[in-house]
């Protein structure tokens, strides 16, 4: 058995992600913490002048007092600053969260400077990027933060003019009296407003959404121009004085330990300053054993790493084999697994059915493939650790790194930096732990840089899986029985890996009378973890396809069966879907895609619905398939109900990107393992979709009044089943293997 511990961090992350629906219902009041200027400067990292790395916009500080009623707003005579609390990984929160503040502050968006906030749990609560939670967790709290500052500015104006506060109005950063004689800008009022009492949260009146000036509009990203100028926004771009460049070689089979290495030879190479062994801390999610090389440049470090020869003890290392797992699954699918959910009586339903259908679905492991390889800059001196990290989970990163170097978390400063993609990978801070350990040992600040090959070999993968499906329809053509025998993977022999656990809530649980879900797990050592829409990203492929299989067996239109399964409008449990919202997006997608129209031979439409991350999303794919199994996706139509939209530009971009990412993953992506080692090493064998294959994606939002949710994930899952259903409609072939290239299909 493995001596490696996988439990610590993955449990934390799972809890956070699983808890997102609950968190979304809590409308947290922002912390009202009055700070003096010195405290604020310290908290926002604006002290120290020269080392304001990661804070691309310098904050100009005026002589007079600033209005800063909370951690989100700062107004003085020089301007309005809004702080963005969460890591930006491409989901757009550095723009969308400050928009919430600006709306209720009633300031013109173009007058706002957005600055990334420091990590401060007291003032900001949880700061992380995961589970599409940023909008639901902050929607009301950040509006209140803006409204608080606005109320203080109005109070200051009322005092200055000797007028009642309720006779004053605000717009675009100006307070005005109703009679039009008095007006003052926020900048003029800021220092007086700073001495007003902070209003109670209950006294704040938030805007009627009908009066929104910023929310729901198309707002372009706050970093767009800096990106176009090539400014150092990302983790990989950071440079600190005296910094060296580090690489770290771990065992190609996870769990292997260093026996010996040609360290003297490496140290003699050009530019190499040092090379040493790290033992690891026994936790696969933190610090694995390996050899660190410190050099004067990234290239010299990379070249030295190529010349590194390590003798590994692979006694306890991974022997994971995908081909073995496939063989195991092929036999396990015929045996009952552990019961996960069981409602009604599936066996009786099958026995009394008109037709029964079986299908064995399988999907491969995939890598995150975020374009910025893992990196972290770290400086350790005098018992203090400073980190510049592109991480989705900075708070946890601080705790882990503190443990690694043996100091209190209070002595760790982490600068959160823009992430070149996340997709779940940077929820795990192994690269950050490595950087901390290397910096401590090296005695100089270092930037740890993983190669792409490192990134692919030491990812925390989305687990592959297998589903032996069996279902039935009754004499009325209604789905009567549904059994999913799921074969997944486990690190500890007890729990399935992160993203590999099913529940009775997975569609169509709660909607079909007789449902049984069984689960069996194959032991696995390579790390598995959250990957864009964990669980949903694969379950949707299986269940969304199998509903169509049953509809076809019943000789009915898939759309009719899908709507029948959804049934009467109702809420399925506190975290479940609302069937009425589901039906509405299904109908909207079908209408916009002109469902039911006559199509030429070899062309078909496919529909799928999936509920995840509190988002109700339906997609219709329009595909053409030729005799050589070449698939052209002509168009994808999406209908989404995620509540009110915060940033229409960002929302549309997320949906289109999710569809394209979904296509890429459906057709092309797979990592395989043999002898514990990942078989793919770079993008030449991990062929992400490129522009010529990207279809038009038509996006429609239902602007409902339900609580808002995020869009980083929920538009991903329905794509795979929609396309597979369309392929079936086009050519009569059911594809039950993902990626589709494994079944002989290519995307053109």
């Amino acid at each position, binding site marked *: 058995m493995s001596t490696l511990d996988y439990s610590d961090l993955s449990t934390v992350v799972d809890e956070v992600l699983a808890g997102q629906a609950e968190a979304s219902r809590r409308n947290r009041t922002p912390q009202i913490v009055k700070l003096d200027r010195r405290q604020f400067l310290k908290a926002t990292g604006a002290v120290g002048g020269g080392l304001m790395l990661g804070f691309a916009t310098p904050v100009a500080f005026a002589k007079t007092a600033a209005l800063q009623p909370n951690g989100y707003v700062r107004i003085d005579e020089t301007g309005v600053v809004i702080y963005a609390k969460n890591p930006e990984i*491409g989901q757009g929160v550095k723009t969308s969260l400050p928009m919430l503040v600006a709306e209720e502050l009633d300031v013109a968006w173009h007058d706002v400077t957005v600055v990334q906030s420091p990590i401060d749990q007291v003032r900001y609560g949880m700061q992380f990027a995961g589970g599409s939670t940023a909008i639901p967790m902050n929607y009301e709290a950040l509006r209140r933060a803006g409204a608080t500052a606005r109320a203080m500015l109005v109070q200051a104006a009322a005092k200055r003019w000797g007028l009642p506060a309720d006779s004053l109005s605000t717009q675009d950063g100006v307070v005005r009296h109703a009679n039009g004689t008095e007006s003052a800008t926020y900048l003029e009022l800021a220092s007086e407003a700073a001495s007003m009492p902070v209003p109670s949260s209950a006294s704040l009146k938030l805007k009627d959404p009908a009066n929104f000036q910023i929310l729901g509009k198309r707002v372009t990203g706050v970093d767009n121009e800096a990106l176009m100028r090539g400014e150092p926004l990302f983790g*990989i771009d950071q440079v600190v004085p005296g910094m060296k460049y580090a690489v770290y070689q771990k065992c190609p089979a996870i769990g292997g330990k260093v026996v010996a290495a040609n360290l003297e030879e490496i140290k003699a190479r050009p530019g190499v300053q040092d090379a040493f062994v790290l033992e690891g801390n026994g936790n696969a999610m933190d610090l694995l054993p390996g050899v660190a090389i410190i050099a004067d*440049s990234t290239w010299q470090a990379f070249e030295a790493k190529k010349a590194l020869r390590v003798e590994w003890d692979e006694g306890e290392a991974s022997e994971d084999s995908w081909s073995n797992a496939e063989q195991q699954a092929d036999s396990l699918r015929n045996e009952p697994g552990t019961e996960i959910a069981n409602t009604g009586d599936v066996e009786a339903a099958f026995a009394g059915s008109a037709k029964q259908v079986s299908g064995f679905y399988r999907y491969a492991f995939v890598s995150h493939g975020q374009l910025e390889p893992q990196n972290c800059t770290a400086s350790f001196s005098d018992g203090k650790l400073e980190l510049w990290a592109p991480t989705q989970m900075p708070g946890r990163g601080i705790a882990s790194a503190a443990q690694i170097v043996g100091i209190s978390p209070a002595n760790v400063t982490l600068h959160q930096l823009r992430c*070149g993609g996340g997709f779940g990978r940077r929820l795990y801070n192994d690269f950050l732990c490595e950087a901390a350990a290397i910096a401590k040992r090296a005695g100089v600040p270092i930037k740890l840089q993983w190669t*792409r090959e490192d990134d692919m070999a030491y990812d925390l993968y989305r687990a592959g899986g297998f589903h032996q499906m069996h279902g039935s329809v009754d004499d009325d053509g209604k789905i009567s029985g549904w059994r999913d025998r799921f074969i997944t993977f486990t690190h500890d022999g007890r729990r399935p890996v992160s993203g590999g656990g099913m529940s009775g809530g997975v569609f169509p649980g709660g909607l079909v009378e007789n449902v049984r879900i069984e689960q069996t797990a194959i032991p696995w050592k390579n790390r598995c973890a959250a990957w864009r829409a964990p669980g949903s990203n694969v379950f949707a492929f299986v269940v969304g396809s199998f509903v169509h299989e049953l509809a076809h067996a019943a000789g009915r239109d898939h759309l009719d069966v899908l709507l029948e399964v959804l049934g009467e409008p109702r809420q399925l449990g506190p975290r479940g879907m609302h069937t009425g919202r589901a039906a509405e997006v299904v109908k909207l997608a079908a209408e916009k895609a002109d469902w039911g129209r006559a199509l030429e031979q070899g062309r078909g439409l496919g529909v799928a619905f999936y509920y995840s991350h509190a988002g109700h999303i339906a997609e219709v794919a329009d595909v053409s398939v030729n005799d050589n199994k070449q698939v052209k996706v002509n168009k994808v139509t999406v209908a989404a109900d995620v509540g009110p939209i915060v940033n229409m530009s960002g929302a549309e971009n997320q949906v289109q990107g999710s569809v394209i990412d979904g296509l890429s993953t459906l057709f092309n992506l797979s990592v395989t393992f043999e002898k514990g080692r990942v078989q793919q090493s770079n993008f030449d064998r991990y062929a*992400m979709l490129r*522009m010529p294959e990207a279809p*038009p994606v038509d996006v429609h939002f239902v602007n409902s009044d339900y609580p808002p949710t995020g869009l980083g994930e929920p538009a991903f899952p329905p794509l795979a089943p929609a396309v597979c259903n369309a392929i079936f409609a086009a050519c009569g072939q059911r594809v039950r293997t993902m990626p589709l290239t494994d079944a002989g299909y290519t995307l053109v």
Partner: protein
Amino acid sequence: MKLKINGQDRDIEDLDQKTPLLWALRDELGLVGTKYGCGVSQCGACTVLVNNVPVKSCTMPVGGLTDAEITTIEGLAGEGGELNPVQQAWVDLDVAQCGYCQSGQVMAAEGLLRSNPNPTDDEIDQALAANICRCGTYIRIRQAVKQAAGRMVAGE
């Protein structure tokens, strides 16, 4: 050695001639807008122009570039700092999600428009096919290239 980058002569001391241009730009010259993605010319995040032609800087040794005109993302804006039409289209259409690949995408688009100011949709797709965007922003990239081309043809 000497390199001509964004119209300026830049001196780099003690640089191995085999060093890829990418790392010379990033580590030696502090031009970090050019990104490392794969190191094997697969993703295009490191795309720069060499004599107006898009190349993958991650696999191009600096040794052969002493007489070349190299342009990076930092060299596209005008003398007054105004964004060029390609950069401006990227900003206006809000192309980026994570943004990491976008400097390479912009350089590929810039290279296309320098040789073909009015490309067809297919020509845009083919020219940008060397660049991966994991976020899947291709639809807006395509729009942005067309918008930039339109503005350039109109002489804006």
